[in-house]
């Protein structure tokens, strides 16, 4: 095998530069004194100060956070249920339709998901009088619907790679099937569930297209606010806001990745020790 893939390594460096130069440039210009967002006029942190006193942005950030927390949690519960159903229940009525429904939102363009959800909410309001006003509830429902399928995908793939012998052993020792699920299966797949929650949270807090359709008067999430500002052009305060978000997400993702990696290593070690003990015994 070739040992010095200089070509590949330079491609990697080029690619990573491509990934990070725009983001770094944006971060640098957030410290720009000039009102012009792309011409350097000296160092300043004034845009960060202005940001903190901007109540509109703070409200939007808070709303986004609330929606993301609620929708990610519900999406994780429902999505995990779907993952268990698909991975563990071999046969039930309507399984084909169910697995189709689980994978369809993943390939559906967001514009279409947004429009179809909005039409549903409008027709429901017409027919049954609910939802009276679009906002927090409709955004949360729409976010749950398209983020739960990501959770399902993660949980399902973890369950199918898991050794069913452990579950069978618990069953042989007299546990009822749902007790096995509660006491054995769920704890084992908890890293996958956590990863699913994080993904659902990120998808929700980042979404602009679907939210743009199903939102109503007064419910402005952070991406919607940024979207409406960005359409008017590049401004230094958006640079500052973007820098804060990128740094927060960067730190959060790195930490979460580190914790998940450690949990995974511990799990592997436990399994190996259990196997060693079993073979010795």
């Amino acid at each position, binding site marked *: 095998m070739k040992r010095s893939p200089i070509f590949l390594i330079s491609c990697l460096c080029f690619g990573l530069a491509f990934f990070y130069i725009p983001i770094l440039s944006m971060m640098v210009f957030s410290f720009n004194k000039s009102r012009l967002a792309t011409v350097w006029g000296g160092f300043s942190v004034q845009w960060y100060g202005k940001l903190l006193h901007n109540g509109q942005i703070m409200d939007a950030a808070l709303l986004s956070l609330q929606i993301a927390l609620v929708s990610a949690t519900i999406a994780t519960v429902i999505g995990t249920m779907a993952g268990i159903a698909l991975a563990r229940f071999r046969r039930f009525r309507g399984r084909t339709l169910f697995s189709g429904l689980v994978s369809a939102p993943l390939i559906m*363009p967001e514009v279409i998901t947004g429009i179809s959800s909005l039409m549903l909410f409008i027709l429901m309001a017409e027919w049954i009088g609910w939802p009276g006003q679009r906002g927090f509830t409709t955004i949360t429902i729409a976010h749950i619907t398209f983020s739960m399928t990501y959770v399902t995908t993660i949980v399902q793939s973890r369950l199918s790679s898991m050794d069913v012998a452990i579950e069978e052993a618990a069953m042989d020792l007299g546990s009822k099937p749902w007790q096995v699920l509660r006491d054995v299966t769920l704890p084992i797949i908890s890293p996958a569930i956590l990863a699913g929650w994080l993904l659902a949270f990120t998808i929700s807090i980042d979404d602009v297209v679907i939210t743009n359709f199903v939102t109503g008067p007064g419910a402005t999430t952070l991406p919607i606010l940024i979207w409406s500002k960005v359409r008017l052009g590049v401004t230094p305060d958006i640079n500052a806001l973007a820098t804060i978000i990128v740094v927060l997400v960067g730190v959060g993702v790195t930490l979460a990745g580190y914790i998940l990696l450690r949990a995974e290593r511990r799990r592997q070690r436990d399994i190996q020790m259990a196997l060693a003990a079993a073979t010795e015994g």
Partner: protein
Amino acid sequence: MQPASRFSTWFNRDGWRNTIIAVPYGWLIAFFLVPFVIVVGMSLAMRTPTSPPVGYRDNWPYVVFENYQRLVSDSLYIRAYATSIWNAFIATVLCLLVGYPMALGITRVDRAWRTVLLMLVILPFWTSFLLRVYAWIGLMGSNSWFNRGLTALYNSVVPADWALRSIPMMNSNFAVVLVLVYSYLPFMILPLYANLERLDGTLNEAAMDLGSRPWQVFRDVTLPLSVPGIIAGGLLVFIPASGELVIPSLVGSAGDPMIGRVISDEFAAARDWPMASAVAVALLFMLVVPLMAFNHYEAKAQGGGSP
């Protein structure tokens, strides 16, 4: 006590199982399948000046196919579909050309570096999509250091008559493709990496021992074996890219819109729900075809009994 124990009997026997199936099933039917059926039904309706602005014919067959007829007769829609497919296709090819060497490069470094590099590839994907598009708006603007640098480079190689004050990058299909590649590159790299990492290194060594040059090993061994990764990555880029709304709205040209923008404009600006629905349904059909082809290919590959 009676109802409680009856509940627990039911729950223990098959209630827990039915609950686990019914909750997500019901949710997806109510909030995904039903809205989709509404869109399909809407695409067969007429636009009316009522609220909601939709109506059906009073007599058989109640539905109209006008919207689909307009779809194939009005050049606006055909051009928008062509622009979307073309932009998405070019972006997919570019993602492959940039992403393949990167994915292969990650498999060739040692384990500790692999984790770091994968992290660096995934990290932009977790940061806000909107802000990554925004970052490019800053770079492509005529006053930015990036545009000035490129302009200076361009002016230094072309004759003086062709010199430009700045390169007009914003609001063009070039900008759309560039930002598409930037946004969707991780979706190409990750499945490719997953595929390349599983390849058996001894095959490469065997080919080398038998006298192949590195380039030949790549062409005859690595590349054919990574076709599933290429297809998976290609679909993950092509499908969302062709329905993209944010990127063409922010950096694309208004005169040559992509289909996502047409759907959104028909719906919100023109308030023509039936037409927006018809455009959406047609787009879905166009996306389902390559997907079916992929599934067919996968089924065949698995049936073929690869080692």
